C-alpha cells in the first residue's frame, strides 16, 4: 500500500479491505489473497491491456460484471468475485481460449504443471477439453526466425505480457502483435539481423509467458 495515498475501505466477497485510493482493483484483490482469474495483467502495468477478459467481478451499482483490472478502488465499493454472472463470463472467455488449443500438446509443453491455463481451469472447475465448442484449427507453424527464441502461435493467448516486459527493459519492445482476427500473433519484425544486434536474449519474455508459447532456443535443443 502506498503510504502517502489516502486509504479507502472496500468490501470484497464480504471481507473488509483497506487499500490506497486509486489502486487497481485486481491488484488489491490479489494482494488480499482473493484470487480473480487473469492472464494479461501485471502489477507494473499502468494501463493493463484488459485483453484476456477473465478478471470479471461484480461491483454493486454496475449493471453487469466488469473487468477488475480496469477499475480503481473507491471508498465504500462493494465487490463480488463469485456471482453466477461473473463465473459465466469467465468460463465463457476461458473456454474460448481453450477452444483454439491442442490439449495433447500439454504433455510435451515446457509450461506443463505451471501453465496459467491449467491453474485457471482448476480454479474454475473447467475441463481443458471443451465439450460444447468445436475446436478451431488455426494451425500455424512455430516461428524460428528469432536468433534466441522460438514462438508457438498456437499456444499463445495474446496476453501481451512479453511485449510489456520487453518494452520495460529495452524502452522499445522488440516484439509486437501482427495480423488480424484469429491469425493475430506475436512477431519479431521478421529480421534476424536486426534482432541479433538489438535483442540481448535476456529471456524476460520467456519468463513472463504464462503458457509456454515463447521458449529459449537452448531449451528446445536440450529437450529436443
Amino acid at each position, binding site marked *: 500500500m502506498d503510504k502517502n495515498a489516502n486509504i479507502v475501505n472496500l468490501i470484497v466477497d464480504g471481507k473488509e479491505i483497506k487499500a490506497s485510493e486509486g489502486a487497481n482493483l485486481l491488484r488489491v484483490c490479489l494482494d488480499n489473497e482473493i484470487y480473480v482469474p487473469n492472464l494479461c495483467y501485471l502489477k507494473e502495468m499502468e494501463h493493463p491491456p484488459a485483453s*484476456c477478459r477473465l478478471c470479471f467481478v461484480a461491483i454493486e451499482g454496475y449493471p*453487469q460484471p466488469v473487468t477488475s483490472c480496469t477499475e480503481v478502488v473507491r471508498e465504500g465499493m462493494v465487490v463480488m468475485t463469485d456471482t453466477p454472472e461473473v463465473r459465466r463470463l469467465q468460463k465463457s472467455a476461458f473456454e474460448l*481460449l481453450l*477452444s483454439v488449443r491442442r490439449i495433447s500438446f500439454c504433455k510435451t509443453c515446457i509450461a506443463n504443471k505451471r501453465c496459467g491455463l491449467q491453474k485457471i481451469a482448476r480454479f474454475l472447475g473447467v475441463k481443458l477439453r471443451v465439450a460444447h465448442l468445436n475446436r478451431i484449427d488455426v494451425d500455424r507453424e512455430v516461428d524460428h526466425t528469432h536468433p534466441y527464441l522460438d514462438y508457438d502461435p498456437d499456444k499463445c493467448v*495474446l496476453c501481451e505480457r512479453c511485449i510489456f516486459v520487453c518494452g520495460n527493459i529495452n524502452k522499445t519492445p522488440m516484439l509486437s502483435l501482427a495480423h488480424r*482476427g*484469429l*491469425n*493475430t500473433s506475436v512477431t519479431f519484425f521478421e529480421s534476424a539481423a536486426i534482432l541479433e544486434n538489438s535483442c540481448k536474449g535476456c529471456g524476460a519474455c520467456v519468463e513472463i509467458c504464462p503458457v509456454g508459447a515463447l521458449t529459449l532456443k537452448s531449451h528446445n535443443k536440450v529437450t529436443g
Partner: protein
Amino acid sequence: MTPNDNRSSIEKEYASLREEAKLRLKRLRETGQPNIYIGMATCGRAAGAIETKEAFEESLFKRDIQARIIPVGCMGHCYAEPLVLIEQSGFPTICYHQVTPGKARILVQNFLEGGDPCLEYVLGAMQPNDMLPCVTDFPRFGMEKRVVMEHCGLIDPDDICQYIARGGYAALVKALKMQPEEIIAQIKTSGLRGRGGAGFPTWKKWTIAREANSDRKIVICNADEGDPGAYMDRTILESNPHQVLEGLAICALAVGAEQGIFYIRAEYPLAVEKINNAIKAAREKHLLGPNILGSGFSLEISLFQGSGAFVCGEETALIKSIQGERGMPQVRPPFPALKGVWEFPTVINNVKTLASIPPIIRKGANWYAKIGTEKSSGTAIFSVVGDVVHPGLVEIPMGTTLRELIYDVCGGIPGRKKFKAVQIGGPSGGCLSEQFLDWPIDFDSLSEAGAMMGSGGMVVMNDESCMVEVARYFLDFTQKESCGKCTFCRIGTKHLLDILEAITKGEGTERDLELLQILSEDVKAGSLCGLGKTAPNPVLTTLRFFREEYEAHVFEKRCPAVMCRSLIAYYIDLDKCARGCDACMGSCPVDAIFTTKDRKKSIDQSKCVKCGECVSACPPEYDAVRKVSPPDRIPPEIVPQMEG
C-alpha cells in the same frame, strides 16, 4: 486593437471574400453560355460520369457550342446516376438522370443547339416553373430535409468560391466573434448528438476537451467509414469538403485547439484529393492557417490516411493508428477528450457531426433543435441500399418512420416483392422486421428495437433474403475485421460464424441455436470495445425476430427464402419449358442440363452446382426454372428422362 476593431476587421475580410466569390459566379452566368453540371463523385464515376463528361466535351467541340462543364459532387440519387444539371437561359435548371454518353450527345444536339429540352430524359426542374414538373414534387426530393447535404451535388467541391457565395464560412466568421463557451452553449441548445453511431452529445465531448488543462489540443475529423453498404461520409467529403472543414475549424475554436487532423481511409482517394484541395484553397483565402481572417486564431489542418482497418473508426484505435501504432482499441478511461493523440486532449467527431456545425451556428441552435425529435434533434443521413426502387443517400428529419423512409422517400420494394427486413447500422446494427416499420428513426428508438443508428447504413431486404445468411454475412465481416486483441471478439465471433455457416448448410442442430444465443450474449457483455460489444447484434436480432427461419434451417433443412445453396434445388417446369429452346443449356457451367425425350430441358441434380445461371438465361416469356427448398421438394413427376 480592441476586440471591437478585431471583430469588424474579421467582418471586413470576410465581406470582401464573399464579394469576390459572388462576382466570380456572376461573371460565369453573365456570359450567356449554358452551364452543364455533372455529378462526378465516386458513385457518379462508377456509373460512367467520366465517359459522359467526355461525350459532352467532344460533342460541344464538334458542334462548336460554347458551354461550361462544371464537375460537381453527388446529390445522393444513386438510382439516377450519372446525374446532369443543365442551366440554359430561357429554361429552368433541368436535372437529367442516367445520362449515358449517347444521351449526352443528344442533349447537346437537341437541347443546347436545337432548344428542345428532351423531356424523355428529364427527372425534373430544380426550381418551380411553368414548363416542367419540379423535382421537389417527388417525395424522393420533397420529403428530404437537407441540412448537411444542402449544397452536395450543386457546387464544385474544388471551387471554394461556390461555397462562399452560398454563405459558406459565414458560420466560422460568426464563431470567431463568439466566446468559446458561447459556441459550446449553442451546440448544447441545438441538441446535436454524434453522428458516428453512439449518439454521444457533441457539446459534452467539446466541454471536456475545452476544460482539459493542456497547452496543446487536437481536433480530428473521423472519416474512417467502413460499414458495408455505407458511403455517406465519402459523399459529403467529395461533394462539399469545405462544410466539413468549416465545422472542424469551429470545433477547434470552441475547444481551443490549433491543430486539426482529417483521418480518411486510403480507400477513398477522391475524398483525400478533395480535402487536400479544400485545405489548400482555404489557406489561400486565410480561412485556415495562422491568424485566420486577422482574428488571432490559428489552425493548421493535416490529413492522415488510414490503412483500411475497420476497427480504426473506433476512437482509441484511431488514436493509436495516428501515432503510428497498431490500430487496437484501448480501455477507456482515459477518454480521448482528456488524453488522446500523443496524450493531448483530443476531440474526435464524425464527418456528419462536423458538417452539421456550420448550419447550426449560422441559422441558430433553436432552428436546428426544432428539426427532428426532442431527444434526437436534426437530420439523419442514411445510405439506403438493397431492395428499394430509389436507393441512395437520403437526409431526413429524425423521427421519420421507417415506413415513410422506405416506401415514400425511397419508392418501396421493386418488383411487387414483399418487404421482409431492414438492416440498420451495419455490422454493429440489427435486422428489424415488419413490426418496426412504424417506429420513428432516432437514436433511442432504434437502440430500443435492438438495432443501432450506427453511422447510417441501411439495407432493405425483400422476402428473397435469408436472414440466417444475412447474419452470417455480417459475422464474417466482423470476424475478419476483429483486431485480435480480446478473447471474446477474436475467438467468440469465429465460433458464431462457424455455427451460422453450419446452419446455412443444413448442418445445424437444436443445440447450435442455444449456443448461438448464449455465446452472442457473452460476446456482447464481455468484449473490450464497441466492435466486439455490437458484433453479435445481427445474430441476436435475427434470432429474435426471425427465429422461425433458423428453426426451418435446423429442423426441416429448409431455407424459407430459398437462398442457402446447400438447402435448395433447381428444376425445370416442363409445362412451361419451350420445346427446342436451349438458352439454359448454354449458360450452365457444369453441363448439368440435358434434353428430355420431348425436346425439353431438365437438370441433372447430381451435377448441378446451384449457381442460378439458368434462371437468368431462361427467357422471361417461359420463366420455366424453379427453385425449391428443401431439395427433395422437386415434384416427383419431374423425373429426368434422357433423350433417346
